[in-house]
């Protein structure tokens, strides 16, 4: 008996401590526990979620992973330049189901609702390309045409691109003070640049920025040191921007924006408030129902349910789980479902009491016989959650699945173990039957 009571007391004490932890880490963000504040998803705090698809068709399959990683780093640098707090940039491998491999880049910008400038900062990549003017190109016709496709037909691609840059530096021509951009290629680029200049002396090498020709110098001699200069009529500002973009920006893999999601901050705040309200009302209604229907065990179930909620909230903070509207919905739903085990146990206990068994025996039977059902049904829920998480199509659904799984697992503990400890520590005479026991442990409309 003493052992049971100490166990029950420990659970309650742990519940209170965890409850205080949850409370203080939210209310005092500056305090010691402030770093454990809830992490809210974009749909709750507002922001922009962008999905890019990377075109890896021209990347050898062995290099895809490393190329995606360097793509991620480039984008991350750019996002940081943009000045967002806690941005998230991650690579996602998709298309496992149909065999073809699709590489995506997910960019989350909390607090940013101006999609236009966000997309501009990330997506408007300066693609720097070097193309040779074809030998038979007619310069006069070239200048006359306004058709881009026709214009581009006069150039042939070279393997030299901005991806092979080591760095770009802003300089000024010592004589004219005109801004120029000095390019320094990496080893591979140095070699390619050297070959091109060696083999094509006298030809024009077009320098294209974002697909537009910005300069068309003549190759006079081989350039073996991998250095080049562009002086395409820049103002100091445009040259500076180009240098920054080239340094931070030459993307190893071309990307295309395929999905955008933006949520205003006010909408997110309203979603949080509404969901918290729904959660409290849901908890209150379920508690009221439990107490009215199950009387004393109902009170205990509500206690177990409170501890359940506190444990879940603590896990949200410690794991940490990024909370979304769907995740919170899963939590609220799990409050309603966590009591399933309690209901099974109480119904069974009551049934055994009705058969005239002693309280102790009835409680024992209640727990023992309800257990197979509780176990089987919770396993099926957890399997569902795992499949949902595994095949989940979005962060929203994965968030739901994760919370759902944690909820079911924790509820098995609180509804069975904690409830059992509480029930036994109440100190009823387990040998008794009938009388007040039947009232307290009875339920529904029976007296």
């Amino acid at each position: 008996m003493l052992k049971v009571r100490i166990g029950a007391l420990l659970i309650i004490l742990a519940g209170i401590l965890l409850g205080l932890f949850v409370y203080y880490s939210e209310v005092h963000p500056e305090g010691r526990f402030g770093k454990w504040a809830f992490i809210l998803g974009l749909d709750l705090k507002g922001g922009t979620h962008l999905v890019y698809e990377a075109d890896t068709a021209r990347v050898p399959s062995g290099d895809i992973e490393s190329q995606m990683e360097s793509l991620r780093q480039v984008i991350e640098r750019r996002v940081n330049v943009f000045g967002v707090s806690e941005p998230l940039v991650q690579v996602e491998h998709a298309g496992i189901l149909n065999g073809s491999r699709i590489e995506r880049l997910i960019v989350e910008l909390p607090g940013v609702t101006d999609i236009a400038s966000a997309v501009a900062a990330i997506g408007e990549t300066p693609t720097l390309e070097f193309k040779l003017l074809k030998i038979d190109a007619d310069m006069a016709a070239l200048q006359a045409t306004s058709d881009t496709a026709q214009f581009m037909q006069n150039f042939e691609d070279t393997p030299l691109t901005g991806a092979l840059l080591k760095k770009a530096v802003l300089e000024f021509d010592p004589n004219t003070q005109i801004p120029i951009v000095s390019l320094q290629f990496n080893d591979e680029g140095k070699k390619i640049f050297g070959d091109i200049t060696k083999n094509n002396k006298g030809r024009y090498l077009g320098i294209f920025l974002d697909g537009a020709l910005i300069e068309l110098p003549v190759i006079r001699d081989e350039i073996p040191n991998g250095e080049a200069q562009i002086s395409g009529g820049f103002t100091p500002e445009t040259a500076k921007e180009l240098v920054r973009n080239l340094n931070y920006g030459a993307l190893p893999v071309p990307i295309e924006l395929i999905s955008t999601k933006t949520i205003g901050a006010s909408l997110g705040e309203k979603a949080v408030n509404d969901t918290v309200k729904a959660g409290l009302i849901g908890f209150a209604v379920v508690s009221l129902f439990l107490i009215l229907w199950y009387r004393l065990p109902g009170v205990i179930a509500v206690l177990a349910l409170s501890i359940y909620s506190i444990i879940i909230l603590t896990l949200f903070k410690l794991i940490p789980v990024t909370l979304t509207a769907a995740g919170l919905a899963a939590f609220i739903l799990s409050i309603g479902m966590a009591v399933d085990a309690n209901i099974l146990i109480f119904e069974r206990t009551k049934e055994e009491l009705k058969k005239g068994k002693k309280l102790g025996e009835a409680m024992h039977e209640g727990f023992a016989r309800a257990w197979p059902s509780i176990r089987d049904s919770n396993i099926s829920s957890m399997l569902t959650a795992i499949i949902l998480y595994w095949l989940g199509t979005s962060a929203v659904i994965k968030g739901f699945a994760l919370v759902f799984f944690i909820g079911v697992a924790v509820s098995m503990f609180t509804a069975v173990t904690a409830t059992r400890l509480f029930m036994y520590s109440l100190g009823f005479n387990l040998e008794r039957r009938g009388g007040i026991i039947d009232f307290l442990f009875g339920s529904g409309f029976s007296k």
Partner: protein
Amino acid sequence: MTSYSVVVFPNKPVNNMQIVKNRKIFYTFSTILVVASIIVTGVFGLNYGIDFEGGSIMDVAYINERPDVELVKSSLTTNGFSGFSVRPSGDKDFIIRTPALTELDRQKLLVSLTAGGKWQVEQKEFNSIGPSLGSELKSKALVSIFAVLLVIILFIAFAFRKVSAPVSSWKYGSIAIACLLHNVILPVGAFALLGHYAGAEIDGLFVTALLVVLGFSVHDNIVVFDRVRENLRLNNEYNRKETFEETVGRSTSQTLTRSINTSLSALLSLFALYFFGSESTKWFSLALIIGIAAGTYSSIFIGSPLLVTVDRWQANSSNK
């Protein structure tokens, strides 16, 4: 002090048997609902969300008075947009759905919504999904539904592997699947109807709701079947003579309160979510409410009676 006396309900066999006895009524009722759902789905089709079909959706609030829908529509048409829908939401908002927009198109859409600066708008939410991503999400959703169904069949067959007489364990599994189909078809039908009249969409969250309904309603089936399993074992142990029909009837009524109370508490929290929760989880909670209600109903009024029906079929075919 008042002394309490217990009312011990006598085991009323008539009560126990009512559900199993009247099973034809319940079968008919459910068949009507299922057929109606299929017809409604066939007639109205499903209103897929942009995450399954690709497209863009924009929620804009008009800061002053919200203009007439037709005015907004004509402003969009004159600006070259087509294939869009405009739906009022709340007091000040419109929700505009279009084929997938590029960033430039989005800005153009926003300008068009102001009718050249005449009305002031605020973009509250924008979501755009390319068509290829959409079809990938759709196939993933289908795969996950089948994966859940498969796992549930295997799990029930495993959990009930020791039950063989008089109905074999895989039949429990099949009956559970029949119930699960019922529980999934009803919300789909309801959403075909709601999609047509109220703009409800079949999206990732709806599929999630269906999967949760699958997981939740199989609880109900498992609990009833588990009781049948236990009663069969006890009958065997105590050498109690009871027809299978009686055993099933008794098991159903023994678990009735539990089934109703469990879904009641889940439904209570879902109603709280539906009425007070975030706008983004409204349809989601409604899908769950319909599915869970259907699940509780089918486990009590369809699942266990079907055990008896299947048992009868077996008896008939072996007598021939």
